[in-house]
C-alpha cells in the first residue's frame, strides 16, 4: 500500500484554481503529480454527473476547486 499512487480527478474553475495551478507551474512549485486536471469554465458548471463519471471510470477521488 505504501507505493499506492492515487488518481485524483480535479475539476478546477478557469478563473480561480486553474489560474492558481498555472501560477504554481510558472513559479516552478513542486506538488504531487496525482492530480489530473479538468478545466471547467466556472465551478457552477460542476455537476454530480461529472463526479460519478470520474469515479465510474476508476478515479480514486474527485477534487472540486473554485
Amino acid at each position: 500500500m505504501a507505493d499506492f499512487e492515487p488518481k485524483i480527478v480535479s475539476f478546477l474553475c478557469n478563473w480561480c484554481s486553474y489560474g492558481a495551478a498555472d501560477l504554481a507551474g510558472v513559479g516552478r512549485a513542486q506538488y504531487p503529480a496525482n492530480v489530473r486536471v479538468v478545466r471547467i469554465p466556472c465551478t457552477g458548471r460542476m455537476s454530480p454527473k461529472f463526479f460519478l463519471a470520474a469515479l465510474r471510470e476508476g478515479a480514486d477521488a474527485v477534487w472540486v476547486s473554485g
Partner: protein
Amino acid sequence: MEAYTEKIREISERLLKDGTVEAVIGYRKGSVENSNEPCIVRSSEKINDLVWDSNCRINLANYLTNRKDKVAIIAKGCDSRNINTQIIENKIKRDQLFIIGVPCSGMTKKEDSSDLQENCKVCHHKNPVVYDELVAAEVEETKVDRYEDVKKIEAMGVEEKWEFFKDLLEPCTRCYACKNACPLCYCPTCFVDESKPQWVGKGMDPIDVRTYHFLRAYHCAGRCTDCGACESACPQGINMRHFTKKLEKECFDQFAWEAGLNSEERPPLDTFKLDDPQTFIK
C-alpha cells in the same frame, strides 16, 4: 371516504358546468384491485368516474407540467406541495388552476389495505398547503420523527451502507416507473436517455443502476415532498425513498427547508444566500 367522493363529484360538476375549468384531474377506480388510476374528466357525464379512497397513491401534480388549459385538480397534502413546486418552476400558472384540496389521512399499502404507506406514517403535511376549496374539514397533523429510517442508515459503517444499498437495488430492472410517476421528473430529455456523452450505462450493471438512482435523487434534492409515488409505482417494491429522504433531511437540517410550502420561495439549491452553510469547503 364516501363523503369525500360525493363532495369531489359535486365540486367538479359545478366547475365543469359553469365553465370555470375545462377538465378535472382526479382518480378513478383502477382495473387492478386496490389501485386507483388518474383520470381527466372533461364532461359532466363522466363525473361519476371520480372516486376517493385510500388507494389514491399517485401524485396528480405530475399531470400539470406545461398544460395550457384551465384545470381543476384534486390535491392531497403532498400533491399540493408539488403543485407549488410546479408553479415555482414555471411549469404551470396558479390562475390556470382550481385546486380541490383533500385533507388526507394517508394512503394504504398496495399489498395490505390495513396498513399505511411508510411515507404517510411519517407525513407532517396531511392538509393541502394551497387550495381553492376543501372537501372536508382539515385533519389533525401528526408529529413524529420523520427521519428514523435515515438515521438508522446514517449510523452504519461505510461497507455496511454500501451493502445495504446493494441489496436494496438488487431487484431493480430499470423500468423507470419511479421517474415516470414522479411529479419532479419532467426534463424533456432525461440524463438516462442522453447518449453523447453517455452519463449512465443503459444496462443492468449494478453500478449503472446505482448511478441512476443516485442522480435521480439528486435532481429531486430540495424539491421532493416525499409523496411516495415512486415507491408505490415500483413493480419490484424497492424503497428508493431511502435516497430522496436523505436529501430531504439534509435540506431540512442545513437550510431549514421543506419543499413546496409556498409558491414564492425557490428551493435552496437554486438560490444563493450569504448564510448558506459552507462547512464542506476548505
